[in-house]
C-alpha cells in the first residue's frame, strides 16, 4: 500500500484533541506560502471554501470544476439547512450534543474525534457565512432563526428559505471570486480531472481535460485537494445533478488511494417517483410533508392501477401506521424507504411502473382546511404539479425513495489526507464524518467545515516539509499518465457499437437499485457481482457496445459522459463487494439477513465496528481489491440500538 494507513487521531481528551492538534501542526510562514501551488478539484461548498481560504492565506491555488461556473456545483441544490451548535434557542444544545446526534445518526460507524471536531467548528461556519453576506432567515428582532430537523431534539438548523445550499455556495463562490480577482486563485471551469499523478509516492499533480476544447493538460502542484462530491449517480437515477460522477475519486483510488465504506449510500424517502425510462433525474420533496400526509397503497394488487379516489377506505393499507403505530408516517428515512420498496415489490405500488406510494393529504385538508395546507406546503405542491401535472390538493401525491447522498468516499486520516501523501479529500468525496447514515442539514456543515476551518490547518502541516519538491509537469510520471488518458479516450471513441450510453447506465442503475439499494442480501449482491463485469464487457464490446460519436479534440458531451460511466461500471463492483463484506446492518446499509424482530438494522459491533478501506489491486476482472480495516474506538459514547416502534 502507498503511504500510511493510520488515522492519526490525536491523543488527549475528546474536547481538546483539535485544539492541541492545531497547536502542534507545522506552519508555513507567510512569505513562503506563495511558493506553494495547491490544486483544488471541485468548487462546491468544500472545494470552493478551501480554494478561497487557501488563496486568502497566500498559497497559489488552481481550482478546477466540470461546470461552466464555480457557482453551479451541486451543493447548490441542498434545501433544508445547516446545523450548528450555537444554542441560540437556549434549548440545551451544545457541541457535545451535536457530536452525539451525528455519531448516533451515523449508527456508530464514524470516528469520534472527527465528528467532535465537526461539531466544534460548526459555530464558526455560521459566523463566517453571516460575515460573507449569506441571507439566513431571521426573526423579527433581527437575530438568526432556527428550525428543528430530523434526528435531533433541539432547534439548531440555520436556513435561507428553501435554498440554503445555493446561498452558502454563493457565499464561498463570492469569496472565491474575490481571490480570482486578486490573482491568488486561478479558476479552470469546464475542466475535468482525469488522473492523479504520483511522484515518489506523493500526489504532485493531475491530468485534466478541457471539456470545451478537448485539450489535455498536465498540472503540477505541491498538494492536491479533491472535493469532487459523491457518487450517487452510479444508480443512474438519483437526486444528484446529471454531471455528478465518481471519476476523480475512483481514478485516485486506482492510483492507490483507499476507498472507504463505498456501500454507505443514503436513500431519501420522499422523492417524486420516476415515470418512465426516459427520466433523467429524481426530484426531492421536503420530508416535512410527512407531518401531515398519510402514506398508503391499495391492499389488493389489482387495485394498484385504479385511480386513487375509486379505492374505498377499507381497501387502503396505511402500512407505516400499521407497522409502526407510535411513529407512523414519521418513521425515520431508512425505515420508511424500505417499507415503500417492500409494498412495491409486492406489486401494490402505484403510478407508472408501479414504483410509488401515495402520500395523501385528504385527511389533513379535511381537518385543517386547504388554506392551512397551502400555507405550509404551497411551494412543494407547486413543484409537484409542475413535474407531474397533478394537483395534490385533489389527488394524493405519489412518492418514492431515491438515492441522494453517499457517506462513503476516499479514506482520509484526521488531517483529511488520504493514504497517499499530499492527496487531501474533503466534503462528500471523503468518508469521514457521517458514518453509515447522514443526518439532515449535516452535509453543508461538513463541506464548509473542511474547507474553511480544517484544511487550512492540516494542509500546511504537510506542505511545511515539501518546499521545493514540486516536479515539473513534463516529469516522466506526467507523460505516462497523459499517455494512459489519451489511450483511454481513444479506446472509448473506437468502440463504435450500437447502444447508447444511457441505456447501459440505466441497466447498471436498475441492477444496483435492486441488489445494492435500500436493502441488500448475500444472494442479490453475488448476483450483482456476476452481472456487473458482464455489463462492463458489453459496454466496451466493439460491435455491440456503446457508441461515442465525434472526436476527443472538441466539445464532446458524449465522450465526457462515456468516461464517467466507464468508471461507474468498475466502481459499482467495489460498492457491491463492500456491501457483501459488511455482514451486518448499520444505518443506511441494511442487510436482510441482519435485522431485529422489529425490522430494524441490527449492528454487529463486535465484528464490524470498523472502517472498510479498499485498496485497488489492478484490473478488477483478475484481481479483487484488498480490504483494510480501521477499527473504530469509542472512548466517549456508548453504543446503543435505535428503536422507532
Amino acid at each position, binding site marked *: 500500500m502507498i503511504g500510511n494507513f493510520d488515522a492519526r487521531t490525536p491523543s488527549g481528551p475528546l474536547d481538546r484533541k483539535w485544539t492541541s492538534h492545531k497547536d502542534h501542526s507545522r506552519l508555513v510562514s507567510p512569505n513562503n506560502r506563495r511558493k506553494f501551488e495547491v490544486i483544488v478539484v471541485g468548487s462546491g461548498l468544500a472545494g470552493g471554501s478551501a480554494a478561497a481560504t487557501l488563496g486568502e492565506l497566500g498559497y497559489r491555488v488552481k481550482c478546477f470544476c466540470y461546470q461552466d461556473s464555480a457557482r453551479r456545483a451541486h451543493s447548490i441544490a441542498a434545501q433544508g439547512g445547516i446545523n450548528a451548535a450555537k444554542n441560540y434557542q437556549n434549548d440545551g444544545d451544545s457541541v457535545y450534543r451535536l457530536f452525539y446526534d451525528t455519531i448516533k445518526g451515523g449508527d456508530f460507524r464514524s470516528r469520534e474525534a472527527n465528528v467532535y471536531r465537526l461539531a466544534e467548528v460548526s459555530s464558526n461556519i455560521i459566523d463566517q457565512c453571516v460575515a460573507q453576506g449569506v441571507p439566513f432567515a431571521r426573526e423579527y428582532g433581527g437575530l438568526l432563526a432556527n428550525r428543528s430537523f430530523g434526528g435531533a431534539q433541539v432547534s439548531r438548523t440555520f436556513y435561507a428559505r428553501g435554498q440554503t445550499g445555493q446561498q452558502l455556495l454563493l457565499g464561498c463562490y463570492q469569496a472565491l471570486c474575490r481571490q480570482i480577482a486578486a490573482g491568488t486563485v486561478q479558476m479552470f471551469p469546464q475542466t475535468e480531472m482525469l488522473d492523479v499523478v504520483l511522484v515518489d509516492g506523493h500526489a504532485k499533480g493531475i491530468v485534466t481535460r*478541457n471539456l470545451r476544447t478537448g485539450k489535455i493538460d498536465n498540472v503540477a502542484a505541491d498538494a492536491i485537494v479533491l472535493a469532487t462530491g459523491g457518487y450517487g449517480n452510479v444508480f443512474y437515477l438519483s437526486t444528484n445533478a446529471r454531471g455528478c460522477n465518481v471519476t476523480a475519486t475512483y481514478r485516485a483510488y486506482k492510483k492507490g488511494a483507499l476507498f472507504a465504506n463505498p456501500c454507505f449510500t443514503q436513500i431519501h424517502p420522499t422523492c417524486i417517483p420516476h415515470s418512465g425510462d426516459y427520466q433523467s433525474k429524481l426530484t426531492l420533496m421536503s420530508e416535512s410533508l410527512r407531518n401531515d400526509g398519510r402514506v398508503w397503497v391499495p391492499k389488493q394488487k389489482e387495485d394498484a392501477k385504479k385511480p386513487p379516489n375509486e379505492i374505498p377506505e377499507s381497501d387502503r393499507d396505511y402500512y407505516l401506521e400499521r407497522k409502526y403505530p407510535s411513529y407512523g408516517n414519521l418513521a425515520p428515512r431508512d425505515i420508511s424507504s424500505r417499507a415503500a420498496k417492500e409494498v412495491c415489490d409486492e406489486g401494490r405500488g402505484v403510478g407508472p411502473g408501479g414504483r410509488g406510494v401515495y402520500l395523501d393529504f385528504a385527511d389533513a385538508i379535511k381537518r385543517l382546511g386547504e388554506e392551512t395546507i397551502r400555507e405550509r406546503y404551497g411551494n412543494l405542491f407547486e413543484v409537484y404539479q409542475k413535474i407531474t401535472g397533478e394537483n395534490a390538493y385533489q389527488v394524493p401525491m405519489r412518492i418514492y425513495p431515491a438515492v441522494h447522498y453517499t457517506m462513503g468516499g476516499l479514506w482520509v486520516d484526521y488531517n483529511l489526507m488520504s493514504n497517499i501523501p499530499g492527496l487531501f479529500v474533503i466534503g462528500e468525496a471523503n468518508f469521514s464524518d457521517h458514518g453509515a447514515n447522514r443526518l439532515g442539514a449535516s452535509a453543508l456543515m461538513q463541506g464548509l467545515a473542511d474547507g474553511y476551518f480544517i484544511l487550512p490547518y492540516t494542509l500546511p502541516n504537510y506542505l511545511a516539509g515539501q518546499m521545493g519538491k514540486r516536479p515539473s509537469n513534463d516529469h516522466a510520471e506526467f507523460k505516462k499518465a497523459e499517455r494512459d488518458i489519451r489511450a483511454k479516450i481513444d479506446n472509448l471513441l473506437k468502440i463504435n457499437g450500437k447502444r447508447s450510453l444511457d441505456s447501459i447506465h440505466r441497466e447498471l442503475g436498475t441492477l444496483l437499485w435492486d441488489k445494492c439499494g435500500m436493502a441488500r442480501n448475500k444472494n442479490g449482491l453475488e448476483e450483482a457481482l456476476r452481472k456487473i463485469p458482464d455489463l462492463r464487457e458489453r459496454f466496451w464490446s466493439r460491435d455491440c457496445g456503446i457508441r461515442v460519436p465525434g472526436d476527443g479534440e472538441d466539445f464532446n458531451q458524449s465522450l465526457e459522459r462515456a468516461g464517467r460511466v466507464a468508471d461507474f461500471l468498475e466502481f459499482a463492483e467495489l460498492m457491491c463487494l463492500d456491501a457483501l463484506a459488511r455482514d451486518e446492518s448499520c444505518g443506511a446499509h441494511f442487510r436482510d439477513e441482519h435485522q431485529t424482530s422489529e425490522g430494524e438494522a441490527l449492528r454487529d459491533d463486535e465484528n464490524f465496528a470498523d472502517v472498510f478501506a479498499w485498496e485497488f489491486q489492478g484490473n478488477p476482472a483478475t484481481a479483487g481489491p484488498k480490504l483494510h480495516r480501521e477499527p473504530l474506538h469509542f472512548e466517549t459514547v456508548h453504543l446503543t440500538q435505535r428503536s422507532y416502534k
Partner: protein
Amino acid sequence: MIDQKSEPQSAAAATVRTKPRGLISDFCHSSVGRKMIVAVTGVILILFVIGHLLGNLQIFLGPEWINAYSQHLRDLGPLLWLIRAFLLTTVILHIYFTILLAIENRRARPERYIDRQYVKASWASRHMVVSGLVVLAFIIFHLLHFTGRKFNPQFPLLKLDPLNRYDVYSMMVYGFQNVYVSSFYIVGLFLLTLHLTHGSSSFFQSLGLNNQRLTPRLAIGGRILAWLLFIGYTSIPIAVLLGFIKPAQQL
C-alpha cells in the same frame, strides 16, 4: 511557475479593468449614468410637454387668452431664447445618449433570434427610438409650421389682433383646418403618446425612485398621463376640423 499550457478563467478578468477616468466622464460612460441622463432630460421634456399643452388649451377660452399668452412669452425677450436654448440642449442630450445606448444595444446581440416572443416588454418600450425619431421629425415640422410660419399660405396674410399682438388664435385655426396637417399632428402626437406611455414612468426606474410596490402604480399613472396629454393635444385640431373653433379674422 505558472502553467503555460492551460488557460484559466481569471486571465480574461484582466480585460475588464478599464482605465480610470474622471468622475463625470465615468458617469457619462457607464450604462447606468447614461440612462440617468436620458431620464433627467426626459423629465424636463415631459414637463415642457405638459406646460405647452396648458398654454395651448387656452384656445378654448377664445383669442384673448391665447394671444395674450403668446405675447407674454415673447415679452420675455432674451429669457425666451435662454429657455429655447435650454430645451434644445435637453433634446440634443436626450437624443444623443439614446442613440449611443441604442447602438450599443444592437451590438450586444449581433445574431438575432429567429423566433422571438415577448412576455412583458410592451411595443412602446421596445420602440422608443423609432417613436422618438418620428416625434423629432414632428417637432421639426411643428417648429417650422408655427414658429417659422411655413407651409400655410394664410399665415403671412394674417394681421395683428386689435391689441397689436400676433393672432396666434387664428393661426392655429387656419393651420389645423388643413386635414393633412391635422392628421400629421394626430399621428405625431400618437407616437409621442406611445413614447410617453413608457417614458413617463420609466424615468422613476432609471433614477432609482422606484420600488416593488410603486412600479405597477407608476406604470398605470404614466399611461394615464400620456393619454391625457394625447386627448388634450388632439382636442385642438379635432375641434377645429369639426368647426367648433372658427378663425378670429376672415381672409
